[in-house]
């Protein structure tokens, strides 16, 4: 019986990686939300929202684990208590398409761990990072909807 090689199984179905991670992400984030709500009744709302934001990136990184460069970089930042900041302003490289090296540089600043990646790795990591980011955003929206109803 011929069996197809399944070495690229994960790559063919990227959502398979995500499914188990979704549950981990949700439980991690929700537990963090409980803690934040219980311990911050007197603290400022800015501090609380910072903690929630941190919890969001933490649950993303923990659910992705150490198999990805972006999640490893995020975990490092979180553990060192460094500020989690991403560049906001639009790229000034509005010049024509030849210079797609500039866009890659811009992208490197947006993806955790980007600066140490070559172009190939950057694109793979970016796709994975986006998948986890959108899942986290949807999770937060779901929580918003349930709590406010």
């Amino acid at each position, binding site marked *: 019986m011929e069996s197809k090689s399944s070495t690229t199984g994960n790559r063919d179905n990227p959502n398979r990686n995500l499914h188990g991670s979704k549950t981990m992400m949700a439980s991690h984030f*929700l537990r963090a939300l409980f803690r934040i709500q219980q311990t911050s009744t007197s603290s400022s709302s800015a501090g609380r*929202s910072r903690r929630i934001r941190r919890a969001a990136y933490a649950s993303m990184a923990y659910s992705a684990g150490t198999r990805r460069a972006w999640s490893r970089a995020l975990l490092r930042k979180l553990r060192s208590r460094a500020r989690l900041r991403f560049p906001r302003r639009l790229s000034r490289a509005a010049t024509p398409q030849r210079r797609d090296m500039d866009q890659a540089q811009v*992208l490197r600043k947006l993806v955790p761990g980007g600066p140490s990646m070559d172009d190939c790795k950057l694109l793979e990591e970016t796709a994975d990072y986006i998948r986890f980011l959108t899942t986290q955003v949807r999770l937060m929206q779901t*929580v918003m909807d349930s709590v406010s109803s």
Partner: protein
Amino acid sequence: MSSRRARSRQSTSSSRITDEQINDLVSKLQAVLPEARLHGCLSMQVSAAKVLQETCNYIRSLHREVDDLSERLSELLATTEASSAQAAIIRSLLK
């Protein structure tokens, strides 16, 4: 003059990977970007720069959404009764 051209060609090939590799990986990115953002890129020969640009824009907007939702969740948790918030949150986990 020819040496200058050869030099410039050499520098670009050492700092750029092949277009084929870029297109291959860019198609992976396309799979996760919302379709509306790539409305302009219908041809097979995807403009790698365009996709990269849209990717950057998309990631930035996702970061902004995380910030925004964090603030709104923060306000919501402050005003909501603790027990009902927890019940609602558990409900959302079970969905």
